[in-house]
């Protein structure tokens, strides 16, 4: 007996093959990109220019490739930060706050006398990681001890961190030379050294190293195994004797540390100082990267590269076509939406019901 009104029906599919998964994600991506192209063309960009700015730019010259890589460096850190937290089923929406906290500590360290030059960068990096960790510690503890929703607490702390930053920049740390609201410039010893290819700096190999380490931990280590169990079923993990609190806290603190490092990578690698808005947009991009990479670290590097490309392309769109910077943000959101929706086709099939008679 078929339903006479509606010829299509949704049927759950128990286990989709890897090909179906790939096809669904690609389908979502293609649809998202198509919508994005339509948006850009609608905003007055010529289709041929899109090809130039977003596709050919990467191949055009080693210099433009380097600028994309450089743009992607902090994104790699925030992407890895997001995926570690998501692996522990912890929604870290406070990456930007943790970036601010990390960069504040790193900048505070630049103001300390008496640290030998060769040690300055490592100490700054360490400080930034600790700052990020400290900023996520409160939401983590509140969630693990009292069950307070971390989505809201991490997000609220973004605003607290931002106001703390503004206080520093308009108060104690105001540039003594220009009077502008940004901190004094870092010295040469406090800047991430360039690798001699465009502005690409030490952050790139560091990100790759960290991604490899995380990939190994997740796939091969005992901790990674336990983390996967906690991700899949926290209740059963607890009943089996896994110390869920410890596992989650470890992953979440590591997430905060990576976000803090991302703040350091921007301040010591891009801006060479702290500004009011050095962190803007990196938090959401991190979430997007982790989501599109399905929480896989190596894949996250690749996706970070693509988002870097999008940002570099977006900047030249802004210059040549007066396309607002928010377009890049909108495109990212569209991609998340279409890929998330495409997931439906991994778990379900649409089948055509034949309108046959009963019996």
């Amino acid at each position, binding site marked *: *007996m078929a339903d006479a009104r509606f010829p299509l029906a949704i049927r759950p599919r128990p286990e989709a093959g890897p090909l179906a998964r790939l096809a669904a994600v690609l389908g979502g991506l293609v649809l998202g990109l198509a919508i994005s192209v339509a948006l850009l063309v609608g905003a007055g960009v010529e289709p041929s220019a899109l090809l130039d700015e977003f596709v050919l730019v990467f191949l055009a010259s080693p210099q433009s490739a380097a600028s994309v890589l450089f743009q992607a460096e902090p994104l790699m850190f925030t992407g890895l930060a997001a995926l570690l937290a998501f692996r522990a089923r912890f929604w870290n929406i406070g990456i930007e706050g943790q970036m601010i906290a990390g960069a504040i500590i790193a900048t505070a360290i630049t103001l300390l006398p008496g640290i030998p030059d060769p040690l300055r960068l490592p100490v700054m990096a360490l400080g930034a990681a600790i700052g990020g960790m400290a900023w996520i510690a409160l939401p983590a503890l509140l969630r693990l001890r009292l069950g307070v929703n971390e989505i809201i607490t991490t997000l609220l702390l973004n605003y607290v961190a931002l106001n703390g930053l503004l206080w520093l920049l308009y108060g104690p740390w105001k540039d003594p030379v220009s009077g502008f609201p940004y901190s004094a410039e870092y010295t040469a010893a406090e800047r991430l050294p360039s690798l001699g290819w465009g502005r690409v700096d030490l952050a790139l190999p560091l990100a790759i190293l960290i991604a490899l380490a995380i990939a190994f931990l997740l796939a091969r280590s005992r901790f990674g195994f336990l983390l996967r169990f906690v991700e899949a079923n926290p209740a059963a993990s607890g009943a089996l004797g896994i110390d869920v609190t410890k596992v989650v806290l470890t992953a979440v603190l590591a997430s905060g540390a990576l976000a803090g490092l991302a703040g350091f990578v921007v301040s010591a690698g891009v801006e060479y100082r702290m500004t009011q808005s050095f962190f803007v947009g990196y938090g959401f991009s991190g979430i997007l990267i982790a989501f599109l990479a399905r929480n896989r670290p190596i894949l996250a590097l690749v996706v970070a590269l693509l988002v870097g490309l999008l940002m570099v392309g977006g900047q030249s769109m802004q210059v040549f076509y007066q396309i607002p910077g928010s377009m890049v943000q909108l495109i990212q959101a569209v991609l998340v939406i279409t890929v998330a929706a495409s997931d439906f086709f991994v778990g379900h099939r649409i089948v055509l019901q034949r309108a046959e008679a009963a019996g």
Partner: protein
Amino acid sequence: MDLQTPMTEALTLTGIDKAFAGFPALRAASFGVRRREVHALLGENGAGKTTLMNVAAGLYRPDRGELRVFGEPVVLDGPRAARKRLIGMVHQHFKLVPTFTATENIMLALEVQNFAAGRLEIRRRVGQLAEDLGFPVPLDRPVGTLSIAEQQRVEILKALAAGSEILILDEPTAVLTDEEGARLLANIRRLAERGTAVVLVTHKLRDVIAHADRVTVMRGGATVTTADPRALSLDLLTALVVGEVVATPTARQTTPGAELLVARGLSVSAADGPPLLDDVGFTLRAGEILGIAGVGGNGQTELVDVVSGVRRADRGSLRLAGEDLAAAPVATRRARGFAVVPADRKTQAMAGDLSVSDNYAVGGVLRTAFGGAALDHGAMRRAAGEAVAAFDVQGVHRLGQKASLLSGGNAQKLVLAREFSADPKVVVVHSPSRGLDMRAMAAVHARLREARDRGAAVLLVSEDLDEILALSDRVAVMSRGRITAEFPAPVDRQAVGRAMVDHG
């Protein structure tokens, strides 16, 4: 009596097929019920009884087949359409909003138009109906706070208030004590005498023999036969249900050893309610099975959680060979030789999205049997493969396949394989055969006896009295969070049943 005459049938289902995600759940199933009769639909778990009745209640749309109500072919495109045809179903898992009162639940189901006037009208009508049937129900308390038997009465009143003339009851006695069940079945008989067509879905042969006018047996998604139960012997019915003879359990081989696990004064309170566990104590010796019987919701889950360490007791001690573990975390208990098989295996004992291999190996990983920092994945897979073979876990095509794809019985076997892999000293099991078919149940029971015979102390908590009686060396009864009675083997079923309902 001519059993085949279609003229008098209130509801007939003919040649019903239904598949879920490609797996057939019903194959050409046929069934009919008349006014003034109680027609039992008998079969073991997974035979398709509930699926067939969900088709009759409009919840599932059949892939093929015909429904007739009072002789007229119908298409039911939802529960509402079924209700319009005067079909009412009381599901095994009640379809009640726990935060609503009985009145509000019935208002919702009856699609009352005006809230204020509807509430008065429904209260009056349902109160009258409840009185007529001898069905006392509090109408103004949230149904979540009512007992299971009371919630069931609300469900039946809901169906009757909607004017149902065809009433389907899915396993109504499964959640009741023997005594409550008997009272319910007597009430149902009265309903049938007043003209209602009653379908009694059950897996209990006893209910069928004593209370049904006709019985239809289902096996493997098909209806096997329809007959007068008085014309069939218990053995013949069993054979029809199972399809083959299940071996009877072997007698026990050892005598209990020394006292191993001693609980004293275990108590747990809810935030602002009555105690969930109230001064519970028991002594469990090596090589014995202690059965904890009782109607569900009398503290069994809390007892299992407290003994296994998932939940901390407010007071009391739990000594394993003298060492008090009452405050010890789960990991410590497991290190001392605890194995736990919780009632809800798919959510409490497994990670369905992970592989069969991972779900087996997690026990060993926690004992650092596969390495302390880096893991030996080859060894993990080999161990899992051996366990799957040894415990006869079926449906495993690859060790890397998702554990959620296993059937209930095979998932349970996998959990048992993991829990027994370290030769446990104390085994805590809760409703180990709930939802399993007879063959899987027999296999699970055999494993529990084996563990006992190897010298493990087994705490068996189950709401299924048959299971308790089949396995236990001693039986204790829980009621309202307390252990109210204890019986040495051989246990008298009547006495245990009385203790279960005696709330003292």
